[in-house]
């Protein structure tokens, strides 16, 4: 019965979402207070029924109800409980349900944390989010129902894909979806503002904390995915320019631009139409990402079995959402001219440069991601775009962007004095340049131009973020507000990530070897000795464990125990790498296959500074967290009074 309850709850949630997308919107357009007031309760009700539906699916997993097709395909009695929970979103149907629940959570969140906003505005936002919810729930019910029954029910399930049986599955998809779907809030605010024809600075202030929240979840979601791929999937790679990674990365790039341009719109009333466009683009790219992942049109490690009906549905939905919002934009954007001026050398210019370069970066990624689709559609053959394309073209917008970050954050609003700025930044910049050229050379013995440039830019961003806090510590310098701390932390994190990416890419040492127990391999000053292999046994798998002793200059450092696992249900082999993590470097061993005569193929890697990549992302996300904690966003009574005054006169 429980699956049927879940199904019915989902249908009820859909009906509520239909009401939610109509009643509050009509109410707001006609000024009908009673209809406007339906927005919040409908949002909560929708979320409640989605949560019930989600809970029912989870219950089906926990009870091993293999009469539900989705459970039978993705679970097994021997599957550990935590993976049964995570298996709910381990495949297509359930992950779409998670998408909808996440959207419900955000919608409900907007209903709760918008007490200071005019009710008409909130009801429009909720209605827009309701439309999106309708689209996704229809999609689930029509093409991918997770509650479909299987008859006859199998005795046991086909088990969760072994690749997914990892603690990261519990946290990576929900984080990523919180980010992805979270951009529906700024999107909703943008559409609502355009419908109301009332786009003042207040609008930007409301939108900012929501955007930052979505952004910080997306940052963490992407970082977690990269880390997971590194230790589980990628044989030590941490980013593959895979279409699905790009699908999450493009909204991140545009979302980052959106946060910056929102800051200008809030503080200075500028770039209004550009900000609107970015808000539309960020969410459209999230939808496009969902299309790429769920339709199976692209060759990807994340692709599930392809079904054209699903792809077509999302494509049509995507067309409607993007088409409608851009049409609305075309009608409204021209009325948003502002008279406020700024000079060529000011923070406004730098932020404009930032968002343009981020959009270009997203654009080149989009070109490389969709290129193969275009080729396929024109019947020009099946092609794929290699990572070399992305690595090359991504540098062109990113290098100037990263150079500008350190300068931009020290530039005053309105009009800055270049000479004074030069005087202030010349020593830190020179320090970064000298360190960037010589430190890699001293540590690693060689340095290329690009590496020196990367390290310089990374160090420069780190140093630039620390100039003001360092002054503060010595009791000098201006007062540091919370939003400045947020900015400094986020940029510090960016600098650390850039350092990690540059050094890992330049100085990683990889070798594939055929090794027998007793043999040793030397790389990057470390000696890896293959001791023996042991049979080990897990809850639902058997494995062969390789035992490796790592030593440096004759002193034993650690033992690494990579495994080759065979899961009992899906009998495919799985590689579990042995990793010794450290701030300065990771040592990585993965066991390949048996080569005969007792030998194994082994991949051994030395990866300097790789932890900086993800640590930097954590620092960025903390910056976002500090930003949204700014009490400025919670001045309820005053803002409410002001805003209601505005709507009354409008």
């Amino acid at each position, binding site marked *: 019965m429980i699956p049927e309850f879940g199904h019915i709850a989902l249908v009820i949630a859909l009906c509520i979402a239909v009401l939610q997308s109509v009643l509050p919107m009509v109410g707001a357009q006609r000024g009908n207070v009673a209809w406007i007031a339906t927005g919040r309760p409908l949002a909560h009700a929708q979320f409640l029924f989605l949560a019930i539906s989600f809970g029912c699916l989870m219950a089906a997993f926990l009870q091993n109800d293999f009469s539900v097709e989705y459970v039978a395909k993705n679970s097994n009695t021997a599957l550990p409980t935590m993976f049964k929970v995570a298996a709910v979103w381990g495949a297509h149907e359930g992950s779409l349900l998670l998408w909808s629940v996440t959207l419900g959570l955000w919608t409900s969140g907007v209903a709760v944390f918008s007490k200071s906003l005019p009710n008409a505005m909130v009801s429009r936002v909720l209605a827009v989010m309701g439309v999106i919810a309708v689209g996704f729930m229809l999609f689930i019910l029509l093409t991918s129902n997770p509650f479909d029954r299987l008859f006859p029910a199998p005795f046991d399930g086909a088990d969760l894909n072994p690749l997914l049986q990892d603690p990261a599955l519990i946290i990576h998809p929900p984080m990523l979806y919180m980010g992805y779907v979270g951009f529906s809030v700024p999107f909703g605010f943008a559409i609502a503002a355009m419908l109301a024809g009332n786009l003042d600075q207040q609008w930007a202030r409301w939108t900012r904390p929501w955007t930052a929240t979505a952004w910080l979840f997306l940052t963490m979601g992407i970082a977690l995915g990269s880390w997971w791929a590194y230790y589980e999937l990628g044989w030590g790679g941490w980013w593959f320019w895979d279409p699905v990674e790009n699908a999450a990365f493009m909204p991140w790039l545009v979302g980052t631009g959106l946060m910056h341009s929102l800051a200008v719109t809030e503080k200075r009333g500028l770039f209004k139409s550009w900000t609107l466009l970015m808000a539309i683009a960020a969410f459209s790219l999230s939808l496009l990402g969902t299309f790429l992942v769920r339709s199976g049109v692209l060759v990807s490690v994340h692709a599930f079995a392809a079904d054209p009906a699903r792809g077509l549905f999302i494509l049509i939905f995507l067309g409607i959402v993007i088409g409608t919002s851009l049409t609305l934009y075309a009608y409204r954007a021209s009325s948003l001219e502002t008279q406020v001026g700024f000079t060529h050398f000011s923070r406004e210019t730098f932020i404009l440069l930032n968002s343009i370069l981020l959009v270009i970066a997203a654009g080149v990624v989009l070109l490389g991601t969709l290129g193969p689709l275009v080729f396929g559609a024109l019947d020009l053959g099946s092609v794929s775009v*290699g990572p*070399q394309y992305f690595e090359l073209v991504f540098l062109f917008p990113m290098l100037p962007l990263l150079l500008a970050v350190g300068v931009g954050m020290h530039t005053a609003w309105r009009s800055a004095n270049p000479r004074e700025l030069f005087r202030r930044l010349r020593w830190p910049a020179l320090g970064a340049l000298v360190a960037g050229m010589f430190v890699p050379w001293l540590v690693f013995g060689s340095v290329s131009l690009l590496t020196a440039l990367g390290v310089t830019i990374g160090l420069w961003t780190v140093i630039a973020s620390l100039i003001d806090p360092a002054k503060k510590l010595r009791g000098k310098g201006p007062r540091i507000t919370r939003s400045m701390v947020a900015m400094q932390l986020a940029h510090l994190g960016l600098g650390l990530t850039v350092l990690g990416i540059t050094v890992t890419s330049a100085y990683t040492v990889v070798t594939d070897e*055929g090794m027998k127990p007793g043999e040793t391999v030397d790389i990057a000053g470390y000696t890896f000795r293959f001791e023996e292999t042991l049979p080990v046994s897990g809850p639902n798998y058997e494995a062969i464990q390789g035992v490796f002793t790592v030593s440096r200059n004759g002193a034993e450092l650690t033992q690494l125990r990579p495994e080759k696992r065979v899961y009992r249900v899906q009998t495919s082999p799985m590689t579990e790498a042995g990793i010794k993590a450290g701030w300065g470097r990771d040592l990585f061993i993965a066991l390949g296959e048996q080569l005969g005569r007792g030998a194994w193929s082994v991949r051994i890697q030395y990866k300097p500074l790789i932890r900086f990549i993800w640590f930097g992302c954590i620092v960025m996300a903390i910056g976002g967290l500090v930003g949204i904690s700014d009490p400025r966003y919670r001045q309820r009574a005053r803002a409410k009074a002001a805003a209601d005054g505005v709507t009354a006169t409008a």
Partner: protein
Amino acid sequence: MTPRRQRMLAVVVIFVGVSIAATLLLRALDMNTMYFFGPEEVLTGKAPLDKPFRLGGLVVNGSFKREPGSLEATFEVTDNVARVTVSYTGVLPDLFTEGQGMVANGRLREDGVFVAAEVLAKHDENYMSPEIAKMLDKKGHPGSPMDTLVEDPT
């Protein structure tokens, strides 16, 4: 300069800049685009000799050879029409087995052997690369094990 001329100049500069950027971008895209070919295309000379490409197909049963203790492996790949020998040195992916689909990046050597730089296999039991599925579909393959591998979720 009059404001009108200034504007004209700005338009020209932006136009030229965008054109150069677009040309470089498309060149980068073109240089790093790898086509997908099956063994039949390779044998009939459709696949390039001077450029890397991706070769896809099924690993022929019994064709996998490796000197004991060595990382060098050779195997044959088929689309049920033709066969191409692939040579690869390194660790093979977990799900690489005979009778299953694989895609390799690499170049064709003059002697007709495909030297792979990277070998990819399907990553779960039910999944098969859409490219291979489509290719086999086109060429017809009665009784091939691939029919059962492409899962129909509806």
